């Protein structure tokens, strides 16, 4: 299902770097040196591995990972759209570029219960704000979408990240 498996040159040291940094970088003046010491290698090696991971997308981004709830984005609506197959690429690209859409994916329909094939996550301070943004998407997609719906989250039942074990 994932479109691409790990880069063929992903080795044991890369894996150890992932395990050592997945909860965050050391908060000290020379974090890459601190990692190097912990992993028994050189800082230059750590930095070149991290640069390679950024370059090939293994690291999506490096820096501050905000908690959107703490930033005041209290409402999150998963908007879902039934898009004509031949317009999906254009619709997805357009919706993904909107500044209030934080994730945008093509996923399979599961008929008859689920006719939607485009998922766009919309965050806002409250439901009214999310609804207003979804209305903007609806306007943009009015010629390429059939039905749509918005599923608001009512509770976070569990939230942990992916954990790679050492």
């Amino acid at each position: 299902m994932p479109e691409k498996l790990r880069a063929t040159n992903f080795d044991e040291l890369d894996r150890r770097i992932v395990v050592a940094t997945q909860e965050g970088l050391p908060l000290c003046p020379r974090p890459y040196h601190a990692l190097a010491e912990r992993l028994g290698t050189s800082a230059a090696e750590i930095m070149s591995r991290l640069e390679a991971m950024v370059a090939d997308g293994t690291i999506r981004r490096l820096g501050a990972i905000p908690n959107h709830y703490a930033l005041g984005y209290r409402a999150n609506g998963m908007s879902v759209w039934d898009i004509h197959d031949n317009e999906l690429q254009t619709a997805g690209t357009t919706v993904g570029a909107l500044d209030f859409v934080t994730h945008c994916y093509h996923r399979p329909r599961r008929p008859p219960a689920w006719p939607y094939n485009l998922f766009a996550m919309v965050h806002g301070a409250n439901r009214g704000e999310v609804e207003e943004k979804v209305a903007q998407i609806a306007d943009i997609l009015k010629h390429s979408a059939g039905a749509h719906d918005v599923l608001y989250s009512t509770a976070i039942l569990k939230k942990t990240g992916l954990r790679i074990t050492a």
Partner: protein
Amino acid sequence: MCQRRSGSTKRRQPPVDNIDRAIINTLQGGFPIRERPYAAAAAVIGITEQELIQRIERLIEAQTLSRFGPLFNAEKLGGAVCLCAMEVPADDFDRTAGRVNAFVEVAHNYARDHPFNMWFVLATEYPPDIAEAAARIEEATGYAVHEFPKIDEFYVGLKLDA
């Protein structure tokens, strides 16, 4: 020094000031990979290395930041993720949530207001484990698991403004 923080202490959030905002808004990517990266990033914001480190520590403690470091692409690491949904009767929802959450493969789980009312993300180190985990969840709960694997991802930028 260099203690890692769990960020799990619940604490009332102190107000976020303009410097915190600058940190959150400018450092959601592109953190330098060089000998003294905090010093380099701090210079851009106009504060000292020490102040940047202390503010990041504080933002993590206050849970304004989930963490500070790399955001990995699970699939590039050889792992797999899959969004799944279940339709669970209201009177069985809590018991089912407990059973679903007990699976280590369940990374996130959200209640949503729709007949498909439980949405969770399976994350596994090896792709074949997704289908297997879904099957075990069906067995443990008695409800069908609908899988919504990502077919295509449309680019989104860095967008959460503080």
